């Protein structure tokens, strides 16, 4: 097996424990089924392109993006733990290069991001199947969103993990950042109708782009705006990945 895949194997082994899977499933299920239906009383329809979606379908699709983002915390946690528990150095005195270590993290988040997207699609499917409009772009768009989103957020988590020293600091910072991303985005509510300041803030948030692309795929609404959002997502992923790689390759031992 190629060294990168051996590292991916090990990454998945140490991160895919029962706790993680439960967290990955329970949290979105609560959002989709509890919040989704509870808010239906308040929000009947969400305007989406030329048509309306019901709120459970809207939030279920938003949760796909949210879960991709959340799952990438894993990459930060892996790097964080490897540094804290000495495995970073141990791997680097083994049959691996830094580049392979970094690459293995990318693959790991890619896999976990896709797994998360698939999982939430399956869980949320009953809610949005009425509105789904499958076409040739559905799968490519969702996969594109899952992979670029995973790399983008995984890079953010990695950057934070290389910059911080104390473990409380790591948890507080990463949770605050991700909480901000989650709630100042179109994952839970549409930009239309939000106060202008907030609506603008939404578009300074990569999760908005991620969620928009996922929705465009699922609800068959590919527009020029979505194309532009994909470019932003890709550019953001590349830039942040570049920074994360630079920081990781310079990480002092």
């Amino acid at each position: 097996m190629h060294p990168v895949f051996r590292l991916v194997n090990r990454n998945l082994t140490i991160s895919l424990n029962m706790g993680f899977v439960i967290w990955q499933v329970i949290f979105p299920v609560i959002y989709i089924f509890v919040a989704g239906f509870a808010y239906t009383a308040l929000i009947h329809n969400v305007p989406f392109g030329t048509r309306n979606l019901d709120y459970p379908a809207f939030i279920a699709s938003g949760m796909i993006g949210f879960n991709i983002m959340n799952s990438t915390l894993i990459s930060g946690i892996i790097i964080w733990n490897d540094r804290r528990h000495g495995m970073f150095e141990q791997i680097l005195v083994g049959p691996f290069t830094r580049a392979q270590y970094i690459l293995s993290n990318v693959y790991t988040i890619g896999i976990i991001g896709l797994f998360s997207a698939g999982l939430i699609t399956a869980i949320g499917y009953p809610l949005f199947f009425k509105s789904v409009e499958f076409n040739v772009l559905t799968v490519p768009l969702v996969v594109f969103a899952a992979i670029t989103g995973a790399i983008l957020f995984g890079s953010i988590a990695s950057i934070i993990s290389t910059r911080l020293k104390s473990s409380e600091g790591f948890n507080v910072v990463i949770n605050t950042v991700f909480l901000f991303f989650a709630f100042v985005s179109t994952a839970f509510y549409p930009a239309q109708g939000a106060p202008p300041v907030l609506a603008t803030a939404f578009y300074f948030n990569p999760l908005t782009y991620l969620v928009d692309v996922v929705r465009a795929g699922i609800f068959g609404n590919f527009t020029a705006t979505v194309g532009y959002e994909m470019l932003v997502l890709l550019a953001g992923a590349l830039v942040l990945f570049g920074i994360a790689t630079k920081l990781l390759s310079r990480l002092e031992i």
Partner: protein
Amino acid sequence: MLCVEARSLSKSYGDVVAVDSVDLVVEPGKIFGFLGPNGAGKTTTIKLLTTLIAPSSGTIKILGTDALKDPLGARRRVGVVLQQPSYEPNLTVEKALDKYGMMWNVDGGTRKRRVEELLTAFDLKDIRKKKNDDISIGQRRRVQVAREFMHEMDLLFLDEPTVGLDPSARRALLDYIKGRVRGGLTIFFTTHILEEAEYLCDEIAIINRGRIVAIDTPDELRKKFGRKKTIKVHVEGVRDLSGVLRDVGPHDVSYDGGTVITLHSADSERALVRILQVLSSNNIEVEDLSVVPTSLEEIFLKVVRDSEGQGDASGI
């Protein structure tokens, strides 16, 4: 082919010269002991030799491969147990061993066999199902050392592997290492415990402040630095003898402030006669007298002290 060949190896951290023009040669099938006080540069040397950090200057060849040009190639048949702990907190002991073997591309069947062997050899059978997070620090160290034997290698670096091990675990580890060396493995080993070095090593280098200050076989070191005998004189009653001992003359005398006077001298007979004269002229009775051949520990302390330019005057 030499296992380790380092020439004029230096590493500075800002103003601190952690390793200063070190030359090292380790021959195959040997256990090379690397001794030195805290902060001497042992770990830095190991990090340099295992390509974890880059030297400020110098060259390194590991198993014939230029470690600076081809670090990955140089590490291919090298095991490393670093001084700092390393573990995956949520893996069980047996899983940690198995996954480590997987990382080294060892096939499943071999892994399975080796896990069993190592669990036995390192007395880990009782805790095989426990997570690394839930075992004691000494047990974790044992897992860390055992883990390194999951893969094939020709050269193994061990940075204070016995720290935190109880005496029987320590002895078991040393004997295990000896066994592996008979099987063809070469070991580069650091320790603070001189008996360990004596028990294990074919060759010993002593490093202080980044510089190698002595390098030889334990026997040669003893011959070179251990001609002096150590004589302990126990006197009766407690009183301050510092003033009296000043009359002993140019011998290396140290005094613990109580009843024990220690004497190191190549010319021990004359020194002893002199000290007894001084004691009797001061009406101090000698209760006990013992002659100790110089231990490696004393050689170590002396070599380190000499390298710091303090000479023989201060006591041990």
